[in-house]
């Protein structure tokens, strides 16, 4: 069996102030995978990725990239690795083209190799026209794409994306998803993604690990995780104002607004029963949609179950009309 793209064993990180960010985590990401690393703020996601990228010094444990132990040959391991960090980390006063070419130079690429590669990546990511402009003049979405182009210059086999679409509008986000899918499927690049947009993880990733309070609380396939989902919450819009909250055996119903109800449906329950009961009580349903995406509900239940209630406010609500 091929070596995992990333293998982590017993990774521990204790910061100087005594805070234990990672409590001996184990994690494998297989080659070619599109992998999501999820968790609330402060859970340990960025620390984990920071250790992998050598931006954070580990306290204990072992990290291997494509079978290369980073303690033994970090330089070789780094050739396999591309990183798109959470925050902009380029010199804002440099030209776009200079930023990507410099990164290629740091990996020892000649300008003859680097220039066509830069042109291809900047064109693919819609930045070629901006190549001679200062990076600070780019929009937030363009800056994120610039960091993706920079990370791909040396053709890494493992790409780490730490919240790559944070603050990016929906249209641009979807085009970035397409691009990430393409490099994963067509070029076989293994991708590890952290995101607060759980819809993103559900849409892109095949496997997922959820980290909370420095521990991996789940590590499974996205499909498997969703299959475990026991409840879904729906929002029901009615044609007229509701005076009495309808009562339907076995279902949890709350009134949110005069013409809106929330309905919790457990696995095995049938929506037909709800419609039938509402109809009998003279309530006409105009529309119905998920309150949030399915993975988000699972995530919230897991994190709350482990005593962590605070979910980042940026979690995106997905509303699907049915």
């Amino acid at each position, binding site marked *: 069996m091929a070596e995992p793209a990333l293998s982590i064993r017993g990774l521990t990180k204790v910061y100087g102030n005594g805070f234990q960010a990672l409590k001996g985590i184990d994690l494998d990401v297989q080659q070619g995978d599109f992998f999501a690393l999820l968790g609330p703020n402060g859970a340990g996601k960025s620390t984990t990725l920071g250790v992998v990228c050598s931006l954070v010094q580990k306290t204990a444990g072992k990290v291997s990239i494509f079978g290369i132990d980073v303690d033994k040959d970090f330089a070789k391991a780094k050739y396999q690795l591309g990183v798109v960090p959470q925050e902009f980390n380029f010199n804002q006063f440099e030209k776009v083209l200079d930023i990507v070419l*410099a990164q290629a130079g740091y990996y020892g690429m000649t300008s003859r190799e680097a220039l066509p590669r830069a042109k291809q990546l900047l064109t693919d990511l819609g930045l070629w026209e901006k190549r001679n402009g200062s990076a600070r003049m780019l929009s937030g979405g363009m800056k994120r794409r610039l960091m993706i182009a920079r990370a791909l210059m040396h053709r890494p086999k493992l790409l780490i994306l730490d919240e790559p679409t944070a603050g990016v509008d929906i249209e641009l986000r979807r085009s970035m998803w397409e691009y990430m899918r393409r490099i994963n499927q067509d070029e076989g690049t293994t991708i590890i993604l952290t995101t607060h947009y759980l819809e993103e993880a559900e849409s892109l990733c095949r496997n997922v690990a959820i980290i909370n309070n420095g521990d991996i609380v789940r590590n499974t396939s996205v499909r498997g995780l969703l299959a475990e989902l026991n409840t879904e919450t729906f929002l029901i819009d009615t044609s007229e104002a509701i005076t009495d909250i309808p009562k339907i055996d076995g279902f949890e119903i709350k009134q949110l607004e005069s013409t809106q109800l929330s309905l919790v449906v457990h696995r095995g329950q049938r929506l037909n029963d709800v419609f039938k009961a509402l109809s009998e009580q003279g309530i006409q349903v105009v529309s119905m949609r998920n309150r949030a995406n399915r993975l988000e509900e699972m995530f919230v239940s897991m994190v709350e179950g482990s005593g962590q209630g605070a979910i980042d406010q940026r979690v995106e609500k997905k509303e699907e009309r049915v």
Partner: protein
Amino acid sequence: MNATQTLIALWTLVLKEIKRFTRIWPQTLLPPSITMAMYFIIFGNLIGSRIGDMDGFSYMDFIVPGLIMMSVITNSYSNVASSFFSNKFQRSIEEMMVSPMPNWVILAGFILGGMARGLGVGLIVTIVSLFFTRLTMEHPLLTVLVVVLTSALFSIGGFINALLANKFDDISIVPTFILTPLTYLGGVFYSISMLPDFWQGVSMLNPILYMVNVFRYGFLGVSDIPVGWALAAIFAFIIVLFGIALAMLERGKGIRS
């Protein structure tokens, strides 16, 4: 990384540093030439003509090597200190840290960048000085050697300062409160033979005095102190400070959590 890749990485970093200070030339290259032109006019011409000879040379000829060296020292130091700290501040240092570049290449790249600016400014000041005096060089090779070594030494100093700095104020403290006084008291404007014995002894503890004197010896052929000792001291400082800077970088001091 193989040798070719290492050289490409080093050249990339050096070129990036040169682009940085040339991009902001009104802040980096222009001010020292204006300031030094003022020194030449006021101290060299106006006041110097009343001072008379110093160590057997006109005052203008005496101060030119010291002022060139002063420019090299301050620009080498401040280039690396501000550039590396800006990289830390903007987190663009992470571009280098995630790459396979060895730490010594990162260190060497910043030092060479600082030397490029320090020596570039030194050359500009030298050209400016030609408007005021006829420069002669008694020992050209020694002159070049000592200015290159001094530039390297203060570039390393700037690097260590930037590694330890947590805010922009921290990179101006050393130049303002240590470097400038040591330079002014390092025999740039006077010969230490003019001082009483006690203050001559105190002056001998100032490392910049050695650099200024050896540099002046290269131009004029006179020095207050033995040239061999001075060169040995500069070499020793470079080796020790380079080792300290590299060890700090390996440990991730100031850049890795």
